[in-house]
Structures are given as C-alpha cells and as structure tokens.
C-alpha cells in the first residue's frame, strides 16, 4: 500500500510513515481486497467507489501487472502473490 494511501490510516504504534503491508487470503483481486477491507474498513472508500469499482485514479498491480478490469476485479491472484495499491499517476 503506497504511502500516499497509508497516511490516511491510523499508524501502527511505533511505526514510521511509509508503505503499509497486510497479509490476507484470497484467490482474486476482489477477494483479496474484501479481506483487506474486513481488516481495515476505512480503506474501502479510499480504494473503491460506491459501485465497488477501483477508483478512477487508483491502480492495483498483481505481481507487477496492472489490473485491467477495474470494475470486476476478477483477475486471479496466485498463492503468495503481492498486490500493490497505488495512487495512479493520472490523478496527480
């Protein structure tokens, strides 16, 4: 989770500002994000709009590849895979 997003979360005690990482289960991008939002509910409104789509200026990378269907979020996430959530450059 990029610092620009992580700074809207309550910091972990003793942690410095910067990236935040969470280990959650899920076989698709949607499942992984839902599991993340179950842990950190406030994140949902930052990453998704009220339709459940990835926000226009938010981008997710699954093992380095940008998610292409930002509404469905159905792309598979392999076991041990990493999802990076960034602010898209387009919104800057």
């Amino acid at each position, binding site marked *: 989770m990029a610092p*620009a*997003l992580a700074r*809207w979360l309550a910091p972990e005690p003793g942690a410095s500002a910067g990236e935040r990482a969470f280990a959650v289960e899920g076989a698709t991008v949607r499942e992984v994000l839902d599991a993340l939002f179950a842990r950190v509910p*406030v994140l949902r*409104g*930052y*990453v998704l*709009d*009220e*339709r459940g789509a990835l*926000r226009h*200026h*938010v981008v997710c990378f699954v093992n380095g590849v940008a998610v292409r269907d930002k509404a469905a979020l159905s792309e598979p996430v392999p076991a041990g895979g990493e999802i990076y959530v960034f*602010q*898209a450059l387009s*919104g*800057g």
Partner: protein
Amino acid sequence: MADRLLVSTRKGLFTVARGAGGWRVARVSFLAENVTLAHADPRDGGWFAALNLGHFGVKLKFSPDAGATWEDRAAPAYPEGATFAVADGKPPAVATLKLIWALESGGADQPGRLWCGTLPGGLFRSDDGGKSWALVRGLWDRPERAGWFGGGADQPGIHSLCRDPRCSRTLRLAVSTGGVWTTEDDGATWQLDGKGIFADYMPPDRKFEQNVQDVHMMVQCRESPDHIWVQHHNGVFRSADAGRTFDVVPNVAPSVFGFAVAVHPRDPRTAWFVPATKDERRVPVDGKVVVSRTRDGGATFDVLRNGLPQEHAYDLVYRHALAVDDSGDRLAFGSTTGGLWVSEDQGDSWKAIEARLPPVHAVTFV
C-alpha cells in the same frame, strides 16, 4: 460578532482568527489536500470539512474541538442503480459521488440532522451527525431531474441549502442547473419554485422554464426568511415570498454576473455581490476587485473598493467564498488566486489577509 473564519482551499483548510494585530492564519488543517467546503454546526460548534482527494475520492471529516483533532465521518454514497441523466444531449451515466457542494445543519429540534447537497445532483440526509446518509428519494425520483444539466461542472449539483429558521421541516435548495426547490415535510415531497427567473442560454420559448435555471447561489435572510436572494448565471434575482416568485434586479454594478451573494441576517434589503464581467469573461471588470452592495432591496448599489486591489487583479470569487457573520457587520471573501479580504464595516473598507493562500473554494465565519 464572529472572530474566526474557516477558509477551504485547494491545498488545505485554514483557520483565520482575529487578534490584536488583525486577522491572521491561526491553524492549517489537511495541508496540501483539496478542501472543498467547511461547515460549522451552530447546535454544538462542531466543524465539518469536505475533502476531495484527487485519487481517493470524497471524504467528510468532523472536528469536535475547533480543528485540533479530526474524526472520519461517512461520505454520502449513491445507491446501486442510481443514474443521472442530463438534458443537454449527453448520455445518462452511473451516479457516484463527485463533490460535496453544500452542508446544512438541521434545527435545534432535529439533533443529528444534516443535509448534504452533492454532484451529480443528489440531496442526502443524515440523522446521526454524518455517520450515515440516505439519498433523499423524494427529490431524486422526481421526473424533472432528467431535465437538469451541468453548469460549471459536467454534472448537475446542489450547492445552496436554506433551512427555514421558523420551521425545521422546511428546506429550500438550488441546483446548478435545475432551479429552486422547496420541501415542507423533511424532504418527503418537493415543489419546483423560482418563477420569474430567466435563462438566456436556453431557446426563447424555454427561457422562463423553472427546471433549467442555473442558480449560482441562493441565500435567505435569517430573520426574514421569506426574503431570498439569488445570483444566477444571467443576473441577480430577489424573492419576497420564500422563493415562489422572483423579480430581476438589473442594477447591480458594475455587472450582474457573478457567483457569490450574501444577505444581511436581519435586514433583507441589504445584500452583497462580487461581480465578474460576464459569463464568457470570468474576471473582474477592468481588472479591479469590487464588492457591490445594496441597502434598498436592489434599487441602487454601492461599488465598494476601499482596500481591494484595483490594478491588474484577476480574482474570481466562487459561490461559497463570500460570507457575512451573525452580526451583519463582518464580511469576508476569498478568491481563485488566493486573495482573502475581511471587512468589519459592512464592506465600506477591506483588509487583505497577509498570506498567499491556495485557490479559495469557500469561506465561512465560525
């Protein structure tokens, strides 16, 4: 009299306070974030701030302690299936929250009640201080809404909310672009008001159609709430019957075009405007920033310029960026180029705040 201002800007929320040395920036909240609007709840003194984060959407924050700390509140959310249609040829689109454009508290007899006007045209109601919101279906489901369209924005939006101080169940609002609407039953049913307002951007036979009027800003006199002033795309209008009918006010000098309007809280004949040249030339007339004031219900206007920049000034003042305090003596306005001016004598003289602020979206006294 109010001694503090909340100034919402493109790069943060600034608290400006009056001290021995004049008005100074006393606190900056959300520095570098886009703060589109702030609202102080007169019932408990709490502050709300609406943020529009470029990447992460619209957020609503609440401070119980004058900006020392902030808590999350819910942003209104459009329900599944909500769409908005516009009447100017663009196709209907899925409605998601684009902007919090108006916030108003309920009456003292309505604890927790808040109203929120948004782009793309939804009015939302909260009864728990902004922890949750419901779309006001009584207005959203009106068939006339399909005839609304964008004004300055691509989508229609509700920017003015006037709760009637005599009856908390009565709310009047204005839409850009969708006219003037009134509810007298907490939002369950609505009446399209605003007869007499006209639009020169429509074909002649639709000029007076109430549902297409691009009201830029609407304010009501606190102690005479039947008296309402409107700054519209094509001029200034005044109502003496709670918004049902309006008369044009043609004498605003130096121009009838602008966005902001403020009315004296006790004297409905006194109102202030910050004119720009015209709709296709949105800069001050002759590069001089002036405030236009009437004290006689719009028959005549004073052009006030004492303390305001009079040479190569290209400040535009947005609709929420002119404010009058509870006394009616203090005024403040902020501009798109970061100017902020305060008057303590009803506009006769102005002092610039010593700061180079980001573009100002909204100003309110607290």
